[in-house]
C-alpha cells in the first residue's frame, strides 16, 4: 500500500487567546533563533553576547533607556493618531507629511516668536499651531474623499512629498548657518520654545503629552458618539447612511483629528527632542506607526508593547552594529527577520495545517 501525504490549510475559528499568544511567543523565539544563526554567520560572535549587546544598547544606561522611551513615545502618538482614521478604513498614509507640517509650524513658532514670548505661552501656541497645520494636511484628502471619493491612500501619500518640498523651501529661509542647507539647532542658546525638562528628564514632557493623547483618543474611540459613528462608517457606508450618519462629515472630522495628532507628534519631535527641522524630521515614523497600529490591532496596550519592542530592537541593533563593527544595515536585517516572523505567525493564528494520508493504491484500483 502506497501512502501519499497531502498538506492542506484549514481556517481556524475562535482560537483561544492563550493559544494565539503562545503562537506569537513561539514566533518571537524562532525569530531570535534565526537571528542568532545570522549573527554567528556574519560575526562569528557568541549570539548570547550579541543579545546582551542589544539589551545594553536599548536600556544599558539611563540615557539609553530614555532614548528608547523617547522613540517609543513618538511611534505611539502617531499610531494613536492613525487609529481613528484606520478604524474608519481611511487609509491615511500621510502621517509622515502631517508630522512634517506640525514640525514645520513648531519650528516657525520657535524661530519667529521664540524671542518674544514666555515659554509657557510658546508651548501652548506650538501645540495648537502644530495640530492645526497637521490638520490642514489631513483635511485636504478628507474633503476630496468625502465629496469626490478620490483614493485617499494615494492622495495622502502624495501630500507627504508636498510637505517635504515645503520644508525644503523653509530651509532656504531659515538656513543656519547660511550655506549649510540645514536649519541647525533652533534657539540653541536660550532654548526658547523647547519643551521643558521635567524632574531633570527632557523627554518626560513628551511622555506625558503622549499618555494624555492616547487616553483621550481611546476614550473617544470607545465611548463617544463620534467614535461610534466613525466605526460604523468604517464598517460600511451603507450602514452608516442607514443609521442616519452624515458620512461626509464623519470622514472629514475624523481625518482632522487623526492628522492633528500627527501634527502634534511633529511638535513633540521638533520642540521636544531634535529642536530642528528637516525633511527627515518625520524619520519614517508615519509609516512605522502604521505597522505598530496594525500589529497591535488598535489595542492601546498592545501598541505600547509593539512599539517598545520595535524601538528596543532598533536601538539594540545600532549598539551591536557598533560593538561588532557591523554596518547598520546588519541591524536592519535582524529587525526584518523579527518582523517577518511576527507578521508571518498571524497566518498560523488564523489557519492550521493538516496532513491527510491518501491511499494511492486504492485510488488507482
Amino acid at each position, binding site marked *: 500500500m502506497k501512502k501519499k501525504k497531502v498538506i492542506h490549510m484549514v481556517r481556524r475559528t475562535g482560537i483561544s487567546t492563550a493559544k494565539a499568544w503562545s503562537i506569537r511567543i513561539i514566533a518571537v523565539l524562532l525569530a531570535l533563533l534565526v537571528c542568532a544563526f545570522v549573527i554567528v554567520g556574519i560575526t562569528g560572535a557568541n549570539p548570547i553576547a550579541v543579545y546582551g549587546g542589544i539589551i545594553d544598547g536599548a536600556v544599558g*544606561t539611563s*540615557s*539609553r533607556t530614555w*532614548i528608547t522611551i523617547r522613540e517609543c513615545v513618538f511611534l505611539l502618538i502617531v499610531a494613536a493618531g492613525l487609529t481613528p482614521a484606520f478604524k474608519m478604513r481611511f*487609509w491615511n*498614509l500621510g502621517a*509622515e507629511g502631517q508630522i512634517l507640517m506640525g514640525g514645520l509650524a513648531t519650528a516657525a513658532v520657535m524661530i519667529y516668536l521664540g524671542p518674544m514670548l514666555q515659554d509657557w505661552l510658546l508651548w501652548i501656541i506650538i501645540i495648537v499651531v502644530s495640530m492645526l497645520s497637521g490638520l490642514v494636511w489631513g483635511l485636504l484628502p478628507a474633503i476630496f474623499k468625502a465629496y469626490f471619493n478620490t483614493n485617499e*491612500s494615494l492622495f495622502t*501619500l502624495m501630500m*507627504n*512629498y508636498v510637505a*517635504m518640498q515645503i520644508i525644503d523651501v523653509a530651509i532656504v529661509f531659515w538656513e543656519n*548657518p*547660511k*550655506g*549649510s*542647507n*540645514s536649519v*541647525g*539647532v533652533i534657539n*540653541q542658546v536660550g532654548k526658547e520654545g523647547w519643551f521643558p525638562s521635567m524632574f531633570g528628564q527632557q523627554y518626560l514632557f513628551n511622555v506625558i503629552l503622549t499618555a494624555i493623547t492616547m487616553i483621550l483618543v481611546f476614550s473617544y474611540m470607545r465611548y463617544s458618539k463620534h467614535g461610534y459613528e466613525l466605526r460604523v462608517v468604517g464598517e460600511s457606508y451603507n450602514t452608516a447612511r442607514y443609521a442616519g450618519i452624515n458620512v461626509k462629515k464623519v470622514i472629514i472630522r475624523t481625518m482632522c483629528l487623526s492628522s492633528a495628532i500627527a501634527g502634534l507628534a511633529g511638535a513633540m519631535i521638533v520642540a521636544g*527632542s*531634535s*529642536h*530642528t527641522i*528637516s*525633511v*527627515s*524630521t*518625520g*524619520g*519614517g*515614523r508615519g*509609516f*512605522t506607526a*502604521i*505597522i505598530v497600529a*496594525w*500589529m497591535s490591532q488598535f489595542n492601546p496596550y498592545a501598541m505600547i508593547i509593539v512599539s517598545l519592542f*520595535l524601538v528596543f*530592537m*532598533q536601538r539594540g541593533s*545600532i549598539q551591536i*552594529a*557598533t560593538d561588532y*563593527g557591523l*554596518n*547598520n*544595515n546588519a541591524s*536592519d536585517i535582524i*529587525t*526584518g527577520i523579527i*518582523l*517577518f516572523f511576527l*507578521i508571518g505567525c498571524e497566518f498560523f493564528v488564523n489557519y492550521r495545517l493538516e496532513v491527510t494520508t491518501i491511499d494511492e493504491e486504492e485510488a488507482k484500483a
Partner: protein
Amino acid sequence: MKKKIVSTMLICAMGAMCLAGCRSTSDDAAATASTTAADAATTTAAAETTDAAATTADTAASEASTEATGTGVAKDDLKVGVIYVGDENEGYTEAHMKGIADMKQELGLSDDQVIEKTNIPESEECYDAAVDLANQGCQIVIANSFGHESYMLQAATEYPDVQFCHATGYQAASSGLSNFHNFFTKIYEARYVSGVVAGLKLNEMIDDGTITEDTAKMGYVGAYPYAEVISGFTSFYLGAKSVCPSVTMEVQYTNSWADLDAENQVATKLIQDGCVLISQHADTTGAPTACEAAGVPCVGYNVDMTSVAPNTALTSATNNWGPLFTEMVQDVIDGTQIPADLSIGYAEDGVAITPLNEKVCAEGTQDKVDEVIAAIKDGSLHVFDTSTFTVGGESLEDAIADGSLKDTLGDSYDAFAANVSDGYYHESETQSAPSFAIIIDGITSVQSN
C-alpha cells in the same frame, strides 16, 4: 538625496499596506541625506570670530602646548569615540574611517579603544551618540559631518571633561568652550597642485594643435555655490593658470553633494559648451564617466578616478585625515590643549594628489608637481597669491580698498578682508573651514537652477 527618501517612503507605504513591511530604513536615508550637507562650510561666522580667534591654526597649536593644562591620559586607558554620518560605502566617510585606522596604527591603539558609530544623521541622534560615547568613557569624541556641529556643541557643554572635535565646522572659536574644536584639511593646496597638472595637460594640447590658447577652457562640476566649493575651484584654476596663463574656466552646480546623474549631465553640458578639461567638487564618479565617454581629460576628487576613466583621468585631489586625528588624539594623551581650529596641508601630509596617470598626463608633469609641492611646503608659494589674479579687473587689495566686494560677501566681508595681507589670502588659517568666497576673473560661475 530626495530620491532615496522618496523611495524609502514608497517602500514603507507599500510594506505597511500589506502589513509585511519592515522597519523603516529612513535612518539610513537621513544619514545619506545629511552626508551631503557635511562639507558645507561658510564664511558668515568668520566676522564674529575674527577677534576671538585671531591666531592661526599653526600658532594656536604651538601656543596651546605651552598652556598645557591636564595631566593627560595613559595610552591604555584612552578611549576614542567617532561619529560618522555615513559608512564605508560612502566616499566622504570612508576617507575619515581610513584616517581613524591610520591614527590607530600610528599611536598603537587596540581595536576596543576606538568606538565607531556609523550612519548617524545630523539630528538629535548625533547628540544621543555623542552623549553615549562620553558615557562609555571616551576622552575624545570626533564627528565628521557639518550638520553634526550644533549637537556636538550641546554635548560639549554637558561634558566639559571630554574633548569634542568636529570636522568642517566653524563655531569652535566663538563657542567659548575649551573642549570643542573644529578641524579641516587645507585641501585647496592639493587642488592647486591638481590644477598645475591640468594646466600642463592644456599646454600639451595647445602644442599638439588640438586646441588653441584661446580655447583653453576648463569646466568645473561644483556641488553648491558655497565657500568650500568656491575656494576649491579658485585654487584649482590658479594652479592651472600658473602654467597656462590663457586658461579660463566655467563652473556649473549640481546642487547636491552626491548625485551621479546630475554630475554626469553637468559634465556633459560643460563639454558641449567647449570645455576641454573637467574637474569636480562633488562626491561621485558621474563627471569622470562622462569625460571618459567624451574623451576629455579630467581631474577628480577624493578617490583615484582611473577605475572609471582610465584614458582621461589625470589625478585627484585627496584629503588625508590620519595626521589630523593622530595630532588630536596625541594631544589628549599628552594632556595638551587641542586648538579651537586645526587645519593641516601639504606640510603635515594632510592633503595629497593621487598618483599621476602617466598615460594621460603631459610629459614632465611629475617634476613640476614635485617642485610646486616643495614650494608650498617651504612657504615660498601661496595659493591665493594676490599677484596672480584679479577681481573685477582690479587686484584683490584694490577691490577691498574700494569696497566693491561688500555686496558679494555681505556679513562675512570684514573677516574676508582681514584675511588678505602680505600679498596673499590667508585661507583656512584663522578658521579651519575654507572661506574664500568670491569669483575671480577668468572664471564664470553659472547657477544651474
